[in-house]
């Protein structure tokens, strides 16, 4: 199935419930290499749960999640480590380790998975902070950073291992226009390098700015899916109603 569509990420008939509440009832979609999919939907429709499942932080009740053609749903934590080196997750609030400085946060994945010297690590961190517009913030603690900076440090940390896929959970939520633009630029830079991504967001300008296609999660399934060009030209149906605030 993966080969036919050339999907780096492919979700097939994904079901997930919490107690009696059926959140996902057969979600299926795929994302090709280098593409960015915007995943939108009302609050509580399970966008973040779906995103977490793509990196094995949640287990589906049934269905398949294929990363480069490999189903990750039966994998245990030890097997998922290799997948997580390729699939990065940018948390909504950054999820920085609050007892560590920005430098230590960024060094964390490098020290865990590679055998770089401290000089090499320092150079990579310096370059990464430059790229994400955070020079000179090495010694700051997460508590001393603004919300926008925390998100960017979180993103920079997720990118330290040069993943093939990045999953963004509301990367621009609560940010001012300047910081939103900086995050958009960071996502576009990564996209230009061929990184495949999924973006969960309510921020439609960001979807228009960075995504290739957009899917609406509705009633536990993908309600509608459009390419950005088509969405801009002829928005219709429930997607249009959702974007215009006419339905949840």
């Amino acid at each position: 199935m993966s080969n036919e569509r050339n999907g780096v990420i492919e979700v097939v008939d994904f079901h997930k419930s919490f107690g009696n509440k059926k959140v996902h009832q057969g979600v299926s979609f795929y994302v090709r290499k280098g593409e960015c999919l915007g995943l939108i939907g009302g609050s509580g429709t399970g966008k973040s749960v779906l995103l977490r499942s793509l990196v094995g932080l949640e287990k589906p009740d049934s269905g398949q999640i294929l990363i480069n053609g490999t189903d990750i749903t039966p994998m245990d934590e030890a097997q998922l480590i290799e997948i997580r080196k390729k699939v990065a997750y940018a948390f909504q609030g950054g999820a920085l380790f609050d007892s560590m400085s920005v430098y230590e946060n960024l060094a964390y994945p490098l020290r865990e998975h590679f055998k770089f010297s401290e000089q090499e690590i320092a150079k990579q961190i310096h370059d990464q902070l430059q790229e994400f517009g955070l020079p000179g913030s090495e010694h700051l603690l997460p508590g001393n950073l603004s919300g926008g900076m925390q998100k960017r440090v979180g993103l920079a940390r997720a990118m330290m291992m040069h993943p093939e896929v990045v999953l963004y959970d509301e990367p621009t939520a609560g940010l001012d226009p300047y910081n939103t633009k900086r995050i958009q630029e960071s996502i576009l830079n990564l996209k230009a390098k061929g990184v495949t991504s999924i973006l969960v967001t309510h921020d439609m300008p960001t979807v228009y700015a960075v995504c290739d296609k957009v899917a609406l999660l509705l009633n536990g399934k993908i309600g509608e899916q459009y390419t950005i060009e088509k969405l801009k030209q002829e928005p219709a149906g429930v997607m249009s109603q959702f974007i215009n605030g006419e339905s949840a």
Partner: protein
Amino acid sequence: MNNLALPFTVFMMEVLHFIGGVGLLSRDVFRETFQGRIYFKLIAEQIYQIGMRSLPLIVITAVSIGMVMSLQFGLGLEKFGGKLYVPKLLAVTILREMGPVFTSLMLAARVGAGIASEIGSMVVTQQIDAIRALGTSPIKKIVIPRVLACLITLPILVSIANLVGNLGGLIVGATELNLDPNFYLLKVMTTSSIQDYLSGFAKTFFFALFIAIPSCYFGLNVKAGTKEVGIATTKAVVVSSILIVVGDFFLSKLFWIVEKMI
């Protein structure tokens, strides 16, 4: 009848859930301790946090207990002319029971609460998820250093508590009960045996697990919100304390049987 049965059923379900959860966590801790990398720096940090920073509390508690017990034994035995037995009674009680149990209870209150609240806060702020998402194990990075630090520090803290507890007893014995300090020391040294010491010392490894594993378990099982962090903290202290007190009886019984066999 149903009204009475429901809370009991809920309680029993919670107990079974706890036993299962702690069992699985213990299995993961055991398995991952012997697999792959060991984070010595994190273990050293926890030894400092758990051991060194608990030392003042343990010393004050132990010396106070030694002094109070010496006074109470002295006052009680004086009526029967048995004041001379205070050193022996006190030494054996401290070595076998009071030293390990009180030190462990103090550590459960200070460290168990700290572990549960710290891990719970990390869950709420998605730091535990971040550890997993970055391809590392929260068991290795968070749980194992705390468990090993408890296993290393508690026996040392108990040994110190035994020493200062007896010192407290000696101070009161000399000042309040008019016992000669040399006589007191001699009695402690000659009447307390290595079995007395080992019986208490061996318990500390079990008590360390009773503190660390449930505290980590309650911390990791925080679902959302700071309110749950508070609840997890309370549960960690209560459950660890109960396990120590109840476990002490069974361990005492077990070691008693072992001593008889030897």
